[in-house]
């Protein structure tokens, strides 16, 4: 019994690390640019396809291909902010919601046209390896993914708290008008925020590839988790999103273990609805908006 419980918690924490990369991206964009990126999951999908093709064509290890997927998606993020999102920023919600939503639909269906709905997998030397500790086992691929995800989250936190650009981003998220008066160029800060968020999504995609299949709809799973985690962890709060993502991973894993294999999502929705009912401002407090 205890082993089963501990095993479920370990599985949940490991996948929760990946959810964290996606949710930190969503919450960073929300905090700084004040929009919700509905297309965040599709960038995870793109990251996965980049790693899949690099592995398939050149035999590059998916985790090593981080060095390609992250910069590529950073550039995509800067371009999307500069040419698309910048044009719809304003008091009106409708264009912001439906622009990123249209982007999500577009990327998903382009992937469907270009790559078909087939599942693509990459098999690495460590895909089937696991570390055994007593009765428990820890899959190596997931452990690496979790480690890199935590390292990237820590790097982001250090960036936000020690560098001038990071501080400018935090300033812009606290009060855009005052930050502009202090000489911070909002568009530049927004471009960097989008770039970092998409690079994190790309990293999540590459890290998933050794143990997860790529297909056009794959992003939907992750973006749903991320949205719930971001509400749970208080909108715009990076640490909150990280902790909430790990909780979501564990909750989903416990649901699968003790309720039934297909009940992971039901647990997630139940968590979202309970959060909305009892603590709509998220566990970190603050204003819901």
């Amino acid at each position, binding site marked *: 019994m205890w082993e089963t419980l501990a095993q479920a918690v370990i599985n949940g924490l490991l996948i929760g690390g990946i959810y964290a990369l996606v949710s930190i991206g969503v919450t960073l964009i929300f905090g700084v640019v004040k929009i919700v990126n509905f297309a965040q999951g599709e960038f995870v999908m793109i990251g996965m396809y980049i790693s899949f093709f690099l592995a398939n064509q050149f035999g590059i290890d998916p985790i090593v291909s981080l060095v390609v997927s992250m910069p590529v998606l950073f550039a995509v993020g800067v371009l999307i902010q500069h040419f698309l999102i910048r044009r719809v920023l304003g008091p009106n919600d*409708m264009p912001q919601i439906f622009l990123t939503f*249209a982007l999500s639909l577009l990327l*998903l*269906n382009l992937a469907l046209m270009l790559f078909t709905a087939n599942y693509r997998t990459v098999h690495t030397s460590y895909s089937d390896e696991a570390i055994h500790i007593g009765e428990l086992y820890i899959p190596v691929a997931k452990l690496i993914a979790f480690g890199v995800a935590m390292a990237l989250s820590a790097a982001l936190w250090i960036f936000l708290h020690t560098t001038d650009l990071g501080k400018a981003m935090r300033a812009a998220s606290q009060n855009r008008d005052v930050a502009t008066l202090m000489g911070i160029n909002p568009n530049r800060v927004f471009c960097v925020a989008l770039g970092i968020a998409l690079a994190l999504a790309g990293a999540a995609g590459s890290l998933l590839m050794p143990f997860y299949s790529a297909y056009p709809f794959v992003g939907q799973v992750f973006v749903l988790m991320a949205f719930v985690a971001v509400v749970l962890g208080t909108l715009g709060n990076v640490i909150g999103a990280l902790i909430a993502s790990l909780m979501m991973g564990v909750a989903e894993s416990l649901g699968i273990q003790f309720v039934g294999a297909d009940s992971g999502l039901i647990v997630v929705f139940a968590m979202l609805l309970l959060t909305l009912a009892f603590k709509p401002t998220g566990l970190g407090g603050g204003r*819901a908006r």
Partner: protein
Amino acid sequence: MTIWGLRTRHLLWIAVGLAFLIALPQVVKSSFAIDIFIRILLFSFIGVAWNLMGGYAKQLSLGHAAYFGLGAYTSTILQIDFGISPWIGMIAGGVVAMLASLPIGWLCFRLRGPYFTIATIATAQALMLIFLKFRDFAWGAEGITVPNLGNAPLMMQFEAKSSYYYVVLGLLALGLLITYLIERSWMGYYLVAIGEDEDAAEAIGVNAPKIKRDIYLISSFLTAMAGTFYTQYIYFIDPATAFSFNISIEAALVSIVGGIGTLWGPVVGTVLLETTSTLLQSWLGGSIGGVQLTVYSLILMAVILWRPTGLMGVATEAWQRYLRRRPARA
């Protein structure tokens, strides 16, 4: 002479339009064409239902499939398990959808803007999962075929496709009439005020939570009616069709492309999108998945970036330019 603020000239146009739409299936006999007309009328109707809440009050829901599905399942369960006519089931489905919209609205309206949208997606998906998982009352993932009774108008089953056309034409007319009456009432002004700035509306005494709840009730009732009709039309129901995310997307899409918060916007948007989709399918043969939604999303992006008021906005601007250029009448 005016009826409900309509001048004789307007009434004349409405009569001509209705006569044309009523005569259409008598002239065009091809069942392929009638099928397309039915799709256009149905999605216009769903768009009109969405537009009441999403367009006027700017509560941008992407979860209207929840009510479509509840309407479809209520009437089908009543028909198959209890032999009750879908005409009654359609009203019952609407009532079930209204009852469901109360707790869903209570939860989702706590969030504003994009997070309201996400909460509506989640509730619709959760309902789909419930209908997939609990096989005791709704046949699970396999769904069920509605028994074919031949020509049974009392059970909302017809031999002629044109009869379905008239049913959905009636639904659309009902939706447009309700929208027109709301647009001209105090509620219409409250809705627009909430849509413009909810805090400011509340500050001048608009009871925003109550108005939002009421319009959600109406919108979900109408959406559920569409669900019943669709199931009777295709003779089949399963959770993936009834609660399809594409229903939620299309409801919002046709309204935004046509013109959000306008009476005719959803109709104009549906005509454009469905015609485009039909042309694409006949051109490409429907062999490649994803083409239709790729084109839809490009149209949506173009509208948002260049004409956020939609096609109705473009038409209004053109009409005003024409009026300005025309010499004033003596």
